[in-house]
């Protein structure tokens, strides 16, 4: 119920009364419907589920999340923490 993949909107147009776009997932392009994300613009990233954009990806939030995680990671390294969680032979 959840397979939603982020893709970049590369073109926006109207077709049969629906607002549609071409989305580039990184080498694969597919059409998607933008009616649920009317504020989307070319260059934005959106989560695409069964051919519909269901939400925009906030690049800022993504970056903040990653920064937070990277902070944790570097603190771990500074403390000399063991790289844990790997299954070792």
């Amino acid at each position: 119920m959840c397979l939603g993949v982020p893709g970049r909107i590369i073109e926006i147009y109207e077709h049969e009364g629906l607002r549609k776009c071409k989305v580039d997932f990184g080498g694969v392009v597919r059409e998607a419907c933008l009616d649920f994300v009317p504020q989307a613009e070319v260059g934005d990233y959106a989560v695409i589920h069964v051919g519909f954009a269901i939400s925009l990806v906030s690049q800022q939030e993504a970056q903040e999340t990653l920064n937070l995680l990277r902070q944790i990671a570097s603190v771990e390294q500074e403390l000399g923490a063991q790289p844990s969680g790997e299954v070792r032979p």
Partner: protein
Amino acid sequence: MSQVKEPVTFEGAVCPVPVHLGDTIVLGHGSGGRLMRGLIEGLFLPELDNPVLRAGNDAGRVAVRDDVLLAISTDSHVVWPLFFPGGDIGRLAVCGTVNDVAMLGAEPLYLTASFILEEGLDTGVLHRVVQSMKRAAVEAGVEIIAGDTKVVEKGKADGLYITTAGVGRIYPGVDIGGHRAQPGDLMLLSGPIGDHGIAVLGARGELGFEAKLESDVAPLNHLVRAMLEASPGVHVLRDPTRGGVATALNEIARASGVGIVLEERAIPVRPAVQAACEMLGFDPLFVANEGKLLAAVAPEHAKATLEAMRAQPYGGNAVIIGEVTAEPLGRVLMKTVIGSHRVVDELSGELLPRIC
């Protein structure tokens, strides 16, 4: 505190066997995975049993004289559409059979080709297909020496079907087969996976995506010869066609009674294949290839074999993707990019896009 836990299996977006196994044939029976294996073991082998067939390799290995060993294989080609980016049914037919023979460590020599044509097929289309077969045969260095043609009524074939048989001579002193992998062998892969399956799926148009991708369909016999010339340590060769790398490796693990452990990081996948698989919910390990091979090679010879592969047109991106182990018996494991281990199972039925 010890964190050793058992590896988890993940099969991906596949179709499990439906309840009515055995009553009717379903598409999954042709997909290369567990369903097809069940059909072969449950229906074909009991009737047609002999040691050569039972060995379950890509080609049958027979001795004509003590010093002349042949590899003989057959294949049917029903791909649709007939023409796809990177190839067509004709090139597929020639390369598929050339490769099956080559995977036994044999030099492919002669092919036969029989055609089932659908009434109404444009003869121009047939001509293009045959021209493509000629080009592929020339590239592979084989001759098509016998043929047959039948026509069926409109609607009884997708334009055309091709069945090929191939004969090759096993290189002297070479003993290559699915049963020969040994613990310690390294597993080599000749290049990125999933190109053919995704290219054909894209060309079909049913799922509405466009990919800048071509099928990798190619004859691999010259690559195989170069590998065998470079080292005596090649134990297994397998081309991962329908069912993908996952299915091929499971077959090897079972036939040799060994385990195989892969490194997910090491497995090459083109970005467009990755993107298509993410979008559809496929695992690239299950997607068909038509111009790639897997090789289990003794560790002391792996480097030389790899170098020989990389010097060849169809082996330029060859890499080591894992190794053969004593355990787990008959299973394939993979160390994921985040460091856990999971089981890689064979394809069960048909590969289906999912929403979940």
